[in-house]
Each structure stands twice: as C-alpha cells, then as structure tokens.
C-alpha cells in the first residue's frame, strides 16, 4: 500500500486519498453520535453512502496505480486494502446482478461487541462502513456504473449473529456527487505555518512514530491491535462526510440541537486521544524509544503533539502552554477543515470538533494521570475519571472553516 505522509501538512494519504489513523473508541463514538441524531435507519443510510463514496475514491485510485486487470484481481486487491487498513476480513461474491458479502472481525461490529456488549443490548447492525466498501469494491472491480448497487446488512455480530452478512443488489442508490477532497486539494490549500513551542521535540516524535507505523497492518483477522486499542487507517472523507452532513442537517432543521451534537463530536475526539495517546505513552514500544514517561508537563505536551502529527491529524502546533493552567493549540491545517471548505465553503461558527476534544484530552492526560506510577488505561478508568465532568473546558477561538489562517483552541480549567 502506498502511504504518503506529507512533511508540509502532516496529513496522510493512501495514494491520493486522505486517510488518518483512528481507534475504535473514536469510530464507535462518532458513529453513535450520528445514530443518536438521525436514528438507526437514516444514520445507517448516510454512513453507508458516505463510506461508499470514500471507499470508491480510494479503490479506484489504488487500482489505477496498480497492475491488476481482471475483476477478480481487482476484488482481491480491494479486500487486501480493507484488511491491511484494519477494517477486518470481508469476502465478496458477485454474479451478474446479485451478490453478497460476509464479514469476519469487522472493525465496527467486533469492537462494539468488545467495548459495549457486556453492558448494552444492541438492536441494529453496526457496519455501514463495510456495507459501503462492499458496494464500492464490486462496482470498481466489475466496471459497473456508480450508484448502481444497494446493500443490506441482515446479520451483524453486534446484534448477536454469528457473522456479519450483507446482500448486494443491482439497484440504483441515491446519487450524491458533491466533491471529495484528495491529496492535491489538501496539499495546495494555503497554509500559514509558524513553528510553536517545543517544535524540535514535536518533530522528532512525529518522525519516529511515522517510521514505526509504516509497517503496521491488519493481522490475520484484518484487525490492528496496538497500544491497547483497535486502530484503523480510515478515510478522512468518511469522518468528515458523516459529521458535516449531519451538522448541516441540524443547522437547517433543528438548530437547537447543534450544541449537543458539537459536544458529542468533541467527546469522540476526547475519548480517542485519551485512550490512544495514553495507550501509546504507556506502551513497550514507546518505552523502547523514549523511556517511561515522567510527569514533566512540557515533555508530555510535546509528545502528545508529535503523536498527533504522526497519526495524520495535520500540522498541530503548541502556541502557548502553562502547565496545569492553559493550552493554546493551533492547527495550521487539520484533517477536518479541507472537506468542509470544499463542500460548503466558509461557515459562521467554528466547527473543528475533533481538535477541540483532542486538546482537552491533552490537558487531561497531563493533569489527571500520574505517569510515574503504573497506569491501567481502560473503560473503567475513563468512566471513573469523567463521571462528574472533564474538568477542562475548551473553546475554538479561530477556525480555518470560518476563514481564519488556522484553527486555534484554548483549553483552561473548568
């Protein structure tokens, strides 16, 4: 797979398609937020349609950059990409005008079961991302017209089936042809970059971690189990598509719900960074590179910012930092903004929700954990720490999406 990490923007691409690393906490929480807003059925439709478009972009890109030629070769390449990106294993079958897909260890359904299965009963399927992939893979491999297939996830392990099963039918699906962003678009956006505090350390960490993750890919199950989380390399156009299409819907129909939506979109960033970045810092891999972390807040904030760049989140910079008091984080480009700008142009209200939640988690990780003791990061700890609230508030004071040169978030104590 051809991964490109841009030194200019610290965004990441597979061939020309923007991608980013995210954990199952983020994936599940964000999908849940869309479900809460639109209801299970409408949200499944939106998520699978957005996923379809994002996967189609990637798979068409991949195939045009490879020497596969037959439908079976193309399908095999597609399935390999899906697996290597940590989305699980999927078998696809297509004959004339009907097909099916069988998923094993699909990232969303499987990790939902692992995280929530003991506590909550689920009544609707969890894998619209795989459903979208199945459509895209068949269309691209068999040269079918776009928007010519529909899928239905009739079995899902998150709702206690033995496997995830999808029917695929030759039937037109709704056409959404708004532009998706690609590498050329993202890399050519004007970027006014000024180095921030601890820049040397941030760059060093970003470089080391990018090198380490270059070889990371799905195991036999098609899952990437690392740092105590399930990691995916995922499609930025998917994340941004589901977030901003839902936000737009609320702005036009139920504006009083944009605030809880924004809060939950932010929380998906918070839960992600707390678990993933915390998992990285407590890992043997990190320890082998940098030793066990200490409670030095300046070192910690530079580590965290370096990790963000390494995972493809963009050019994140520490503008100001006062331990236990204040963080001002700037992103001269992030993976959220390009999509919004291409799709909707400028907006009135700042809306880089992931940056908000992530920066909150930075201060939480520094403030609430004792890095010189044994830290057990798990869901139990998360619930215990945040039962009464996060303890830090964040404000997005500037946003690329409103026309500013950068997105800036200010984190202070509540």
């Amino acid at each position, binding site marked *: 797979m051809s991964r490109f990490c841009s030194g200019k923007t610290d965004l990441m691409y597979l061939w020309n398609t923007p991608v980013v690393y995210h954990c199952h906490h983020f994936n599940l929480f964000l999908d849940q937020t869309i479900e809460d*807003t639109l209801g299970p059925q409408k949200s499944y439709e939106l998520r699978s349609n957005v996923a379809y478009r994002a996967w189609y972009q990637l798979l068409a890109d991949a195939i045009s950059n490879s020497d596969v030629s037959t439908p079976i070769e193309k399908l095999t390449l597609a399935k390999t990409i899906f697996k290597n990106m940590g989305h699980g294993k999927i078998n696809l079958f297509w004959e004339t005008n009907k097909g099916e897909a069988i998923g094993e260890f699909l990232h969303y359904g499987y990790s939902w079961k692992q995280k929530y299965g003991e506590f909550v009963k689920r009544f609707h399927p969890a894998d619209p991302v795989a459903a979208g992939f199945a459509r895209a893979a068949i269309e691209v491999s068999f040269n079918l017209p776009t928007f010519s297939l529909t899928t239905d996830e009739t079995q899902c392990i998150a709702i206690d089936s033995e496997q995830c099963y999808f029917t695929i039918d030759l039937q037109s699906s709704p056409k959404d042809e708004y532009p998706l962003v690609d590498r050329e678009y993202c890399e050519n956006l004007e970027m006014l970059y000024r180095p921030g505090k601890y820049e040397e350390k941030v760059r060093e960490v970003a470089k080391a971690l990018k090198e380490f993750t270059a070889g990371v890919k799905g195991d036999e199950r098609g899952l990437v189990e690392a740092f105590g989380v399930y990691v995916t390399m995922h499609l930025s156009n998917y994340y941004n598509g589901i977030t901003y299409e839902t936000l737009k819907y609320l702005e036009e129909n139920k504006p009083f719900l944009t605030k809880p939506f924004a809060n939950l979109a932010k929380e998906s960033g918070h839960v992600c960074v707390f678990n993933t970045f915390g998992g990285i810092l407590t890992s043997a891999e990190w320890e082998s590179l940098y030793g066990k972390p200490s409670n030095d807040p300046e070192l910690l904030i530079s580590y965290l910012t370096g990790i963000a760049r390494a995972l493809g989140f963009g050019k994140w910079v520490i503008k100001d930092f006062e331990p236990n008091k204040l963080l001002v984080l700037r992103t001269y480009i992030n993976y959220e903004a390009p999509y919004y700008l291409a799709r909707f142009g400028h907006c009135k209200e700042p809306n880089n929700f992931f940056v908000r939640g992530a920066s909150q988690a930075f201060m939480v990780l520094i403030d609430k954990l004792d890095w010189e003791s044994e830290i057990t990061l798990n869901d139990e700890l998360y619930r215990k720490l945040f039962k009464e609230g996060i303890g830090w508030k964040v404000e997005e004071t500037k946003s690329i999406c409103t026309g500013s040169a950068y997105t800036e978030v200010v984190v202070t104590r509540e």
Partner: protein
Amino acid sequence: MKDSAVSLPFSMRRYVKDIDGLQAVFVLTFPDGNLYSSWTSPHSSIDTESTAGYLGDLIRANRKVIKQLDIPENVQITIESQPFVLLVKEINKYFDIVTIFNRSVSLGIMRMELKNLIEQIEPHLKTVTPSALNEGVKLINFLKRYSIDTHVALDRLSLVTGIDVSKFHNPMGLTEEEIEKVREGVKYILGLQKLPF
C-alpha cells in the same frame, strides 16, 4: 453542608444538623429505588449520586429478601464495615431510609437518632406517593445512574429525543409528550426493551 440535587422536594438539612457522627442520609422511594432526598456531611467523601444509585438497588433487594424469608416487615438492617455503619429501615410502604454513621458512634445512639429522624420525616412523606414523583426526574436519574458515559448522557438524550438539553436540568417542567420521548430515549440509550418502573 451538601444538600441533595436539584429538584428534590424537601431539604434534609434541618433534620440532621445536630446529629454527631452522621455522614449521610438517603431517603429512597420503593419500588423504584430513586433518590427522594439526601444530605451528605461536607467532611465526607461520599459521592451522593452514585451512592444513591446503588442504595436503590440495595433497598429493592432488601425488601425482596424480607418477603422471601417471611420476616415481619419494618425490620432494620445494619451493615457494619470500616469506617462506616449503615442502617437501612423502611419508613412506610413507599419510602426507605439509609443512614451512614462513623463507626465510632455507638450502635445504640445510631438507632436512637435514626428513630428520631424517621419521626420527623414521616409526617411529610405521608402525603407523598411515588406516582406523585415527577416521571421526568425518575427517568433522568435512571439514565445518569446506568449510562456508560454519564458526563454526556444528557447530550445524547437531547439528540435522541429532539428535546433541548436545557430542559433536562429542570425535568419537572417536561410535558407529558416530552416525558414519553424521554422514556423511549432512555430505553434506546441503555439498550433496554423496558424500564423497571
């Protein structure tokens, strides 16, 4: 002095101010196990909301055991531990009280103080039945007690129900139609097909 949460009907404070060694008092409804009123000492580390949640489970289990063993009703259960002693007693058909004392207080004094406390509270509770308790309060408390991500539970509820989140901070003001949506929303978020009340 830490008094109970928003929207609870009466203040416990005046009844407990002179009781030495008392760490907390909870008055809970039966059979829902919802918190009706509470008081926690400012010097105590007891977390009112989560303790109340689990005490609700305790009093429900307690009553079931009493019934199962055919024990005469209105018994008092004493749970001794370090550093606390809990006394659990039924006030009437619809309410139970749990007092938490420092272990240093003698058992005799604890029992006497509990008896006095019940005598003061009971007249107030005579006029209240659980059905009079606002359904909205019950639902919100239940959601907060059992949701996985408590700190964002109300945001989720707002999206799921389409109700402005500010209304959940004063659930007694919810309309019947809104309460019905909240009920469905709580079931959805907690993955339940029905609620235990």
